[in-house]
């Protein structure tokens, strides 16, 4: 008796601590800002507790609404870009080195082919270009007929470039998303390394079009001097004719670009063509900051600041070129070409009447820099908040109806012992929710499937124990020893079933994708909770029932 009582006391204390701890974890103010304060009298109001609960249990996008985007970084294109760049460099180097060549081209990404008419120059071409391309990354082979040098990017170097490009893209996407003001976004790599995929999840964003445009936007800002002595041409033909008139030597360092001022406010826009120097004074990489600022008249301007190094370059140029024009080129289109009035300090504006949204988005893209290569959307899932709410309501309704049926049956079939099962079941759910809060796990629709399996196994554990006790009673054992034997025999089975399922859940967690992992997490937490409630809690209740009177009970309501 005494032993039993002490045993019961220990159990009661453990159970009380765990229950209380779980409730505190569920309803505590754990996800508040540093300045969170609430009056003690308000703390236990149902609305406040409900609010805390919803902050502690993270719901997946399928339940709370939001956008899930999978992007693929077109990493191979980055290699093509590098190859094309090397083609240009090769032409330049060979021309300057006065080496004869007939053609330089890139037939496949990661390959540059130089053709020459003079076989004796092959080794010189090889050495010169390899020195420039980097001989650790590129290898060269010579072929005859026609004499050719083929440069190949090594496989490991290509892989490294692809990886870098993907990482760079992720960093830029992160930056853009954070600055855009999405709350709690998730940006992570997805799938295998060679997939170059990035997963972006944005809770609460149910209209992702603007974000998608923003992520893909590739605003390249350049400042290019307008050819001295020329102004705005009204037609492309006249600009091209003027360029052609310069003669072949000078021609190659200039280009014709379209000019269009952004005027969304309905004002007449200025349009035309400029002849600009090909080499920009500075590029987006020299930018320090960019902001959308309200213009005096209508709409918004974009104001930008240049880093000291860039500012020096522009400063030196502007000092010498007072009276000339400097074009602000955005994505290969001239946005404005102000006349130089004096030495440039470090900030300037892109004028034109943008809308506030346009100006802010553009400034954001300028700040975060250009994406290293294109991205492609592979998967897009948007759940509106009303659908998520529907799913929760329906899932909860179904669970409650199911639980009520189960409770009703357990009480009907096992009488008073059924109460044990019901208490264990409720406690199981409380610990499961607390576990989700502690591990910061996300509850998704498949996660609810995990909860259903957990509940099923929780009921099963109790049924196993009760049926075992009944068997022992039938065999003629006295109540206390029937309960004892029943528990110890059922325990083996319960541990076997639970551990087997936990083993499979671990596989699912480590090898599965998002939704399958969600299933595994809830399952593991639920089953661990269940081992505790079915075995420990239920047992304690039996001991309590059987020993609370003056003498040991000789009957059991089961």
């Amino acid at each position, binding site marked *: 008796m005494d032993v039993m009582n002490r045993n019961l006391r220990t159990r009661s204390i453990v159970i009380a601590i765990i229950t209380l701890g779980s409730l505190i974890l569920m309803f505590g103010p754990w996800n508040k800002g540093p300045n969170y304060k609430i009056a003690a009298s308000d703390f236990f109001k149902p609305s406040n507790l409900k609010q805390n609960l919803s902050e502690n249990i993270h719901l997946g996008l*399928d339940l709370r609404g939001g956008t899930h985007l999978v992007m*693929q970084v077109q990493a191979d294109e980055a290699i093509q870009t590098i190859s094309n760049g090397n083609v240009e460099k090769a032409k330049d180097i060979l021309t300057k080195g006065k080496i004869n060549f007939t053609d330089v081209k890139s037939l496949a990404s990661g390959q540059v082919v130089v053709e020459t008419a003079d076989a004796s120059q092959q080794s010189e071409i090889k050495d010169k270009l390899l020195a420039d391309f980097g001989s650790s990354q590129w290898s060269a082979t010579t072929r005859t007929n026609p004499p050719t040098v083929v440069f190949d990017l090594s496989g490991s170097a290509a892989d490294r470039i692809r990886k870098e490009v993907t990482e760079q893209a992720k960093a830029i996407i992160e930056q853009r998303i954070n600055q855009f003001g999405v709350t709690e976004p998730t940006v992570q790599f997805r799938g295998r390394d060679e*997939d170059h995929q990035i997963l972006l999840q944005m809770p609460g*964003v149910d*209209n992702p079009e*603007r974000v*998608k445009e923003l992520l893909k936007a590739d605003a390249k800002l350049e400042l290019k001097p307008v050819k001295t002595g020329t102004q705005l041409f009204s037609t492309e033909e006249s600009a091209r004719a003027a360029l052609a008139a310069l003669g072949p030597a000078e021609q190659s360092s200039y280009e014709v670009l379209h000019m269009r001022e952004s005027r969304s406010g309905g004002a007449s826009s200025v349009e035309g063509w400029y002849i600009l120097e090909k080499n920009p004074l500075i590029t987006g990489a020299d930018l320090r900051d960019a902001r959308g600022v309200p213009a005096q008249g209508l709409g918004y301007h974009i104001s930008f600041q240049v880093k000291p190094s860039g500012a020096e370059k522009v400063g030196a140029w502007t000092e010498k070129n007072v009276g000339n024009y400097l074009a602000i080129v955005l994505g290969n289109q001239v946005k404005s070409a102000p006349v130089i009035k004096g030495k440039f300090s470090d900030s300037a504006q892109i004028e034109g009447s943008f809308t*506030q949204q346009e100006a802010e988005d553009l400034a954001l893209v300028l700040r975060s820099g250009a994406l290293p290569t294109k991205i*492609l*959307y*592979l998967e*897009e*899932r*948007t*759940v*509106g*908040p*009303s659908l998520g*709410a*529907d*799913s929760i309501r*329906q*899932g909860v309704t*179904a*669970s409650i109806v199911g*639980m009520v*049926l*189960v409770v009703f*049956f357990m009480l*009907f*079939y096992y009488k008073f012992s059924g109460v044990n099962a019901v208490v264990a079941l409720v406690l199981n759910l409380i610990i499961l929710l607390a576990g989700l809060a502690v591990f910061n796990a996300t509850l998704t*629709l*498949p996660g609810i*499937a*995990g909860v*259903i*399996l957990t509940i*099923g196994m929780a*009921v099963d554990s109790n*049924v*196993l124990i009760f*049926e075992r006790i*009944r068997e022992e009673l039938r065999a003629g054992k006295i109540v206390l020893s029937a309960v004892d034997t029943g528990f110890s025999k059922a325990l083996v*089975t319960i541990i*076997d079933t639970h*551990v*087997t*399922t936990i*083993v*499979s*859940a*671990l*596989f*699912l967690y480590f090898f*599965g*994708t998002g*939704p*399958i992992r969600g*299933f595994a997490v809830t*399952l593991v937490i639920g089953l661990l909770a269940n081992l505790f409630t079915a075995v420990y809690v239920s047992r304690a209740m039996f001991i309590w029932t059987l020993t609370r009177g003056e003498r040991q009970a000789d009957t059991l309501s089961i």
Partner: protein
Amino acid sequence: MIEIFKHANYDFLGKKWLFIGVSWLLILAGAASVAWRALDGNPDTHPFNMGIDFAGGTLLDVKFKDTPDLGRLRAAIEKQGIEASKITLQPVGNQIGEAPKNEVLIRLPNLLHVERKAGESETSAKAETDADVGKKKILTALATLNPADTQGKVDINDGGRDKLQAELLRVDPLNLTAGGATQTPEARYSEIATRIVEYRDKTRGGLIASLDELKSLNGLEPQLWPKLGEAFFAGAAAVKSAEAVSPQVGADLRDRAIYVTLAACAGMLVFVAFRFKSWGFGIGAIVAVIHDVLITLGIFSITQFEIDLTVVAALLTLVGYSMNDTIVIFDRIRETMRVKRREKLETLANDAINQTLSRTIITSGLTFLTVVALVIFGGAVLKSFSWALFIGIIIGTYSSIYIASPFMLWWEGFKKSPQLATAGAPGATTASASSASSGMPAASAVRSGSKKKGKKARTASSMR
């Protein structure tokens, strides 16, 4: 004490051939459905109705103001250059006791052009367009359903708070930009936008039928209405959810789902074999689980229920459930094996099934009740999931009795007496009369069967 079975003593394993036969029939029916749909040369029939998670494509859940006119909707989508045969429109069933939902699921197959180059796997083939082409077309089509006089106006049912706030700022119906108000225009319009969007999404289920509804909202200035009506309108349809998946991602998700399920099964096989110190138990349990998955998939092929990621979760649930059921019985066998060492394994197995029968019926019954609740109240999103569990619970319970134990016995017998077991092994040519037609494990391959070859001919039904 209410009891379902007082002294259960049924000869389960004696009738195993009947049930193994039924299982084969179900599996073959499923296989026939898969084969027939795959080989009939009709590109529109597929072995499985793969959801866009696995097949790629576009799926929109759209809520309409009134009962949607499916013909008109289809025509509008067709006008965006999509073949009529590719458009699937499926009205969402109304919930009992609730207002009509007026929701339609619009589904388009994959519209992306992906060419697989030689030697490239399905998953490595590169898509060249964004996955959302289909979505964009449907959105355009939905916009054409609105009356002509709404052109140039902003649909209040489309987009979130930010979009509404930006639009309110542009229109400035309260003339706040002129100054003089206590709040900045940004702050006030943000409040108004939040109020309207919350009303739309929480109270109205995502769709406001007319702007007049908003007049009853508390805390909004009446001066809003005239200008609001000029700039906004309540569109006929609102998108509740949109999914667009490229086939590349779909194939990837499918492959991973298959691999991870197989890996989990292998893990359980090893663990059960380890716990019971015998491969027979592990194999019996895994065969039963595979049996359940095959039959459930077969039924999904026959009924053409959609298979998506939640169905994979359901299959995993039923794997766990069936495994649980099997282990309870196996545990009982192991327990009695220690006490009754002389008894034949088959008799022990049959006794164990009987001893745990009450528990099996109660647990399955209760789980089944929960799943029925899920089927009835779970709603459209969970439909396939609920049905997979519904089928799975029945099959899973049945398989732990009629499939797991016979296979365990067959393997254990195989271990003890190779010759006997070969006679009964699946597909064996020397099979005894009782197993020749079905090619299933011989009933005779029991523990004591190894002692005397003569016992081989005894059929299971004569065993006690």
